């Protein structure tokens, strides 16, 4: 069989966005190849969630067992390996998420099928799979071809497939779970929710995002001062939190917060995908970075290629002047 399979990702009783994106991608591929899209749903007490995605795939394979209540890469791997071995799909899609990163490489290795991770796009040309990936801090893309094989596995990056409406009605196939308990050697214990900080950056109309280009913790005072002049809050990219210069709740990006302010100003942020995914839907984006090749300029509306320490004092004065008029 040459079907397209995808794994539904869900967490805390909700289908995650990446699942809809993968089903959009999967339906388009299936249509081109004149085949079907099967969504694989591993979960517990799954009826409601399964019903909610019934219009998204041609078939939904449901494995309903308490062992799948929370994600566990090991139990997921055992079940998926069984299913893929039996069904032999041409291509299986998994999200390149915290779940998928744990699962996809180990699953592909166990099955001995060619796989790759973090793909922006996948095409099948003359039966051959071609994937597009990003490399070198987002500065280059690569087309990747695979060792030829009847079955492939790929993980897809979040946010690359705008979700499309669908009005098919999936056939539901229930499968008995090949696993009945989490393995001894890996057990889910609990979720740890993010700590709530003093400032909610998701509620602000103006966000000033600061990155590695700020160089020293002491320089944050400049940014704070600028942000208060413009009536905004200070947020940041990952390196600033890693260095413990700002708390985690100020981080914008895939492992931090998603913000959609009217105005987002980036200072010394290069624009790694992990940051961009958390701010690209802002109303207007102004980027200041001294590297003209920084990927942030692919996302910004207005760009200044200069040293932020040269621009910031003048920018503050211009804002003060504007407000005084």
């Amino acid at each position, binding site marked *: 069989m040459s079907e397209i399979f995808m794994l539904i990702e869900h967490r805390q009783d909700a289908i995650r966005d990446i699942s809809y994106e993968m089903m959009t991608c999967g339906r388009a591929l299936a249509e081109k190849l004149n085949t079907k899209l099967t969504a694989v749903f591993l979960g517990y007490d799954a009826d409601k969630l399964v019903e909610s995605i019934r219009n998204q795939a041609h078939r939904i394979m449901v494995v309903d067992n308490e062992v799948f209540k929370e994600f566990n890469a090991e139990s997921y791997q055992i079940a998926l390996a069984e299913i893929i071995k039996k069904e032999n799909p041409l291509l299986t899609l998994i999200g390149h998420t915290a779940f998928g990163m744990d699962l996809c490489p180990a699953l592909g290795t166990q099955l001995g099928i060619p796989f790759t991770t973090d793909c922006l796009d996948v095409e099948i040309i003359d039966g051959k799979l071609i994937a597009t990936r990003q490399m070198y801090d987002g500065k280059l893309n690569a087309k990747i071809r695979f060792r030829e094989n009847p079955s492939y596995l790929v993980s897809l990056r979040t946010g690359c497939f705008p979700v499309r409406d669908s009005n098919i009605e999936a056939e539901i196939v229930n499968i008995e779970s090949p696993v009945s308990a989490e393995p001894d050697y890996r057990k889910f214990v609990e979720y740890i929710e993010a700590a709530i900080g003093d400032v909610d950056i998701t509620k602000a109309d*103006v966000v000033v995002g600061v990155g590695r280009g700020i160089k020293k913790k002491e320089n944050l005072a400049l940014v704070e001062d600028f942000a208060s002049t413009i009536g*905004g809050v200070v947020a940041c990219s990952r390196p600033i939190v890693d260095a413990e210069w700002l708390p985690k709740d100020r981080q914008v990006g895939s492992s931090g917060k998603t913000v959609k302010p009217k105005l987002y100003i980036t200072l010394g942020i290069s624009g790694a995908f992990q940051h961009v995914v958390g701010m690209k839907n802002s109303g207007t984006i102004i980027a200041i970075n001294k590297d003209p090749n920084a990927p942030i300029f692919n996302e910004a509306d207005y760009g200044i290629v200069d040293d932020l320490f040269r621009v910031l004092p003048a920018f503050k004065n211009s804002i003060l002047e504007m407000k005084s008029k």
Partner: protein
Amino acid sequence: MDIIVCIKRVPQTAEAKVEIESSGKDIVKDRLTFDINESDTYALEEAVLLKEKFGGTITVISLGCSDADDTLRIALAKGADTAIRIKAEDFDELDGYKTAQLLSAVIKDIHFDVIFTGCIATDDAYSQIGATLAELLGIPHATLVTNIEVIDSISHVHRELEGGLQEHIEIFLPALFTIQTGINVPRYASLIAIKRAAGKEIKLVGQNEISKDQLLLNTQIEELFIPPVAKQVKIITGSPGEVSEELAGIIREKGLI
């Protein structure tokens, strides 16, 4: 506790101009600076912290050409006991899968309780070596680790999920963990330690030790290209005063503040 840390020397491309080489499949490397991959620095520090707590040894392994020896020596200066370099020059084209097979071929003969890798390499950005290697070695793993505590051969691990959420899981040792940046504060190597490490032996492993016949590539790069522009940016040029005035004008016109 015996710990293995896999590290990689990578080009520092975050603030550099990256050009495609004439083959179309690689980048021009001679004008770039190289250093240890960022998350590998945190992986190494986590190993040193565990060794300080429980004793034992740290073995660092890198797949690379001879210039990776510098990276391995810095790791020795920071607290690793043994360094192994798998000679990249012996093994032709590489991908994540082949890299994991080579690492596994070396590691299967070494005693270990824990393997650490970085969670992502900034050059090829696969995030797949760790979980692939664990599967090849038949041990459990966890990626994106932000905290580890080991109590009686069971590790209590926090993994970073999306949106600030984390999960707490328990994993039996031996196991492999891919380490996320920010888990610790990596130390600098002292000058004395760097001098001492300069004389240490780096064990080399090449095609005489690992048979090339069994190695498989999953993928090959067909071509590199500049990413298409998602949005056309308007670059504003001029002195800081001029660009600031223009920006203020845009902000006022659009009623952004």
